[in-house]
């Protein structure tokens, strides 16, 4: 339980400074804009489908509002999460408090757990605030909650991977901007790597497609939970956190 003080300190840093509020404000602003636009488009389309019955047979509010919203939110997260994680270790190193942190009677794993869980908690609060959108939809019409919950599960897992990569890269450098851009670059590479699958063949195609983060999110947004995707996300988080631990440890032996 010695990760708790680290966790509390990080939470105090997030909520005691404008960071959390700025992130919340702009994320909700952008995702709310997406939601309203998609919802308006959907209501327009469903009005039109009254006149052409064969056109509107597959129209349903979860597939046509929540699914694009989840995809859009995941792209916005791609930009936001590097900024949440970039200071976690880089700032400590820059300010020289890293040595202090490492000499406290807490293990590396506990420091990492405290910092990672704090970032994850902030992210979960952020996602919790977006529950307003399905709530609004449910106020106007009947929704099926299964695909919405699985979509949120997908977003939580995607965010967990993003945060883990961000923590890893923040532990490698002492420059916050390098950490932020590095995280963004790595995530973007994993986001677009699947596009290369179109022109590749054989095993390479399968591998490229499998590495792509967006491809794994797609099933969740459709209401499908697959052990394959769960394993991808969880091993991704595990690997990134493991590498972070090694990187923290390396400070003890690097010449």
């Amino acid at each position, binding site marked *: 339980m010695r990760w708790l003080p680290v966790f509390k300190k990080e939470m105090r840093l997030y909520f005691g400074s404008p960071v959390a509020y700025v992130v919340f404000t702009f994320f909700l602003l952008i995702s709310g804009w997406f939601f309203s636009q998609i919802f308006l488009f959907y209501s327009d389309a469903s009005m039109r489908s009254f006149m052409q019955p064969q056109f509107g047979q597959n129209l349903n509010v*979860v597939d046509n509002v929540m699914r694009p919203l989840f995809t859009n939110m995941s792209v916005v997260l791609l930009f936001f999460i590097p900024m949440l994680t970039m200071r976690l270790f880089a700032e400590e190193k820059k300010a020289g408090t890293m040595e202090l942190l490492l000499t406290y009677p807490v293990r590396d794993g506990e420091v990492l757990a405290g910092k990672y869980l704090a970032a994850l908690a902030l992210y979960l609060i952020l996602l919790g605030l977006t529950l307003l959108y399905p709530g609004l939809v449910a106020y106007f019409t009947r929704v*099926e909650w*299964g*695909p919405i*919950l*699985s979509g949120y599960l997908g977003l939580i897992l995607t965010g967990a991977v993003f945060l883990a990569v961000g923590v890893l890269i923040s532990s490698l450098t002492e420059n916050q901007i390098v950490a932020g851009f590095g995280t963004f670059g790595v995530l973007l590479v994993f986001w677009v790597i699947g596009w290369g699958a179109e022109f590749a063949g054989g095993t*390479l195609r399968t591998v490229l497609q*499998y590495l792509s983060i967006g491809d794994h999110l797609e*099933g969740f947004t*459709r*209401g*499908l*939970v*697959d*052990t*394959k995707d769960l*394993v*991808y996300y969880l*091993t991704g988080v*595990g*690997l990134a956190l*493991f*590498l972070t631990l*090694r990187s923290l*440890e*390396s400070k*003890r*032996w*690097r*010449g």
Partner: protein
Amino acid sequence: MSWLKRHTLTAAVICLLLAGALALFYPGVPARWLFLGLGGALLLLSLALHAGEARSAMGTRTARYGAGAAVMVLLALGIVVAANAISVRHHVRWDFTENKRNSVSPQTIQILKTLKAPVNAIAFFRSDTPGKKTAEYIDKTLTRITLPGAMFLALISVLPDFLIQWFNTPFYFGGTSLLIVVGVALDTVRQMESHLLMRNYEGFLRKKAKGA
């Protein structure tokens, strides 16, 4: 000599990277073996040139712990790759939509279960033009079949204008309205037909039964 000492390692790494890139993107080109051999040779050469430094660096704390960390990282990578490979081959999927629209329906599964033998799909195409040529051929044929129909529709849509212009007929439908009227009429007939068939009537176009 010092120049050689400094740059052999870089050259070796470049050669090995080239070999990897060739193997990945041009699997048919045998040049990758050349680069692989060259890279290996350069690597050995640079090790030999740096023998003294290598020996002294090998014994330090940094080297020991670094090697340990590298082995751990490689092991972790191996475990992650293996776990993902296994999970791709054996995976379970749950569908959380209410009407299970992402899954195969039980009726379809039932029908599939009643199949005794593998299903044969028969397609006809010319044996001298397999693959893409056949696709183009089918596309061309379909286009040619569609052409008369399209011309007929175009004729209908401009017919009212001609009727009004040349014969001074009092025709109150425009071309598009005529198309819509014809389309709706055809569609209504088709829907009634399908309802009749569904209720086990024989439809409008039944053949004369014997004695009736």
